[in-house]
């Protein structure tokens, strides 16, 4: 190859490669001014639930006779601490739940059936549970399908009081086991940018509305305990991970 040919080849090569060599540089310079920083989610450490639902203990038929169809409602809070994440499954957590419910009905006169206005009878229950929680969020994390499935199990302790207006008849504790299955709809898909902003500003990674079915064997596992457990109850609410 003579010198003129070499020069011609070099010029042609430069002409061919120039867009490849130059354009990344110019694009890089431009990105300093126009690119959007990639969203980095904050760490997920806790999950909190605000819950409302119904509950009727296994005290039939006296319960229905005294309180009729009173369903509560049951108000409760739950806080889970994330222990670790199982890859492609979800989060394993341990949590505590604290609730309150009260049922009321009309008291009756023991002597005369015609006394319809003799005050009220009531019963209140404070259930406290410590739960192991497996929250399966692989569908939402890996497949962008906003469904969270959870399972919970743990000891359930309840304190009850019952009486009529102005008089406490009895109070005590019952212990049992609680289980629950939960399906949640992750709300991030509705407005992903708003969800990201919530995370950036408040550290809330995900918001979920959920429905949960649960049962309890409180007072039904032996001992002289009032059977405050229930075969099946439901609760719904809002859940946030932060």
């Amino acid at each position, binding site marked *: 190859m003579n010198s003129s040919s070499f020069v011609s080849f070099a010029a042609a090569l430069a002409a061919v490669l120039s867009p490849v060599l130059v354009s990344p540089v110019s694009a890089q310079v431009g990105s300093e001014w126009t690119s959007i920083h990639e969203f980095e989610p904050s760490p997920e450490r806790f999950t909190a639930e605000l819950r409302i639902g119904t509950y009727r203990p296994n005290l039939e038929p006296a319960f229905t006779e005294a309180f009729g169809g009173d369903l509560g409602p049951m108000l409760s809070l739950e806080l889970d601490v994330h222990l670790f994440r199982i890859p492609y499954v979800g989060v394993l957590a341990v949590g505590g739940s604290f609730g309150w419910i009260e049922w009321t009905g009309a008291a009756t006169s023991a002597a005369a059936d015609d006394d319809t206005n003799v005050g009220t009878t009531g019963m209140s229950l404070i259930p406290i549970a410590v739960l192991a929680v497996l929250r399966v969020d692989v569908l939402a994390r890996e497949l962008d399908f906003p469904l969270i499935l959870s399972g919970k199990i743990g000891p359930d302790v309840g304190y009850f009081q019952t009486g009529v207006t102005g008089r406490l*008849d009895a109070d005590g504790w019952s*212990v049992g086991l609680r289980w629950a299955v939960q399906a949640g709809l992750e709300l991030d898909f509705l407005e992903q940018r708003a969800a990201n902003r919530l995370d950036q500003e408040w550290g809330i990674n995900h918001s979920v509305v959920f429905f949960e079915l649960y049962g309890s064997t409180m007072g039904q596992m032996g001992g002289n305990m009032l059977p405050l457990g229930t075969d099946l109850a439901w609760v719904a609410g809002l859940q946030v991970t932060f």
Partner: protein
Amino acid sequence: MTKTVTNFIALSAALASLSLAVTAQAQMTANFRTYGDRAAPGTMSNLYFTTWPVSAAECAANTLIPVQISMAPPVVVGTNLFFDVWAGGTGATLSVDCKPGTNRRAVGSTAAVCTHVWAGPRQGGVMQLLEIPPQSLFGSDCSMSGDRWFHIMLVGATGDTSADIAAANVVNVRVVFDGTAPSAPTNVSTSAGDTSIEVTWTLASDQYSSARVYVDPTGTCGGGSTTDSGTTVDTGVSTDAGTDVDAGDMDAGDVSDAGDVADAGAPSDAGEGADAGVDVDAGGGSGGGGLVQVAVVEGTSPSSAIINGSTIEGFDTGDSLPVYVVVYDTARNVSTMSEAGCIRRVEVDGFWSTYCEGRYDSLEECRAAYSGCSASPGGRGSAAPLAGLSLLLLGLVARRVKKRNP
């Protein structure tokens, strides 16, 4: 630039808050000028009330009007200060500028002559209770009605009359003379019950402060009230033997007439608490018994009360007793006694009775079986959940320590 703007906003907010706080403080207290010793006596405010109702009976007895004064620094304990009280005027503020301790108006003032009616030394401390006789303020004519005002000032060292007391530097107290007793409650209705028996009644129109409920432990319910569900007003009580309860027999404001039913020992002030068991007619009733106060209801609309039947001596399950109500207005005038209602004590069943029925011989046995025992936090039944909880807590702590010291 952004940081500067942020700092400016924060500083402005802080200054605004400070300004609001100072303004609020200024509105809460009255400022006083310096007299005599030229040392500022500080500020003072009237605690607890600015309007004081006075009944005709209290006026006649010259019952002291209590005014609780709070003085803010720089009041010095032992400083020679005294309170001056001027009476008169129909407004919320003193309409003239007065000279301390005199009836003279301020130099240059064209206002009317001041009426100086009462003075008292300040006895040290930042709290001072002034007890002012109403007759010293407004004379002995207790048939008056409507509003009167008096004005309290804190004055510096004696002998200094050079300075004037401005109308703005006073604590103003409104006195409302009320010589009319409220009407007796009507439509006294009751519910049957055990530890909770509700009594309701209808109020007439007045400014009420409280109501008191009495039962006659030796009386009987007349008419058909005992066979009704506790909701019928017993209007036949005035004919009951053994009771000396007549509507209108209770003097308004008269607490010393031994001939009346609800007099000796009867409450004479609206702030008195319930004293169930007090015989308010010590031997005065023709039947040898007396009314027992069983409830006090405070408030501007005291129209119901809850009676605990178990606290009334001799009121056993199945018994009925006549119940009466009197009401007090804000000037502590008391109404005549209401017509009688009829309370009835019955055994009340609730959920627990229903649940235990058939399971145990008695409610006590049922309660003993379920209350606490093996399921209580200290019992054996709680060992498993407590152990589980402890393990979980230990695991959390261990994990935390491991994360800090990998």
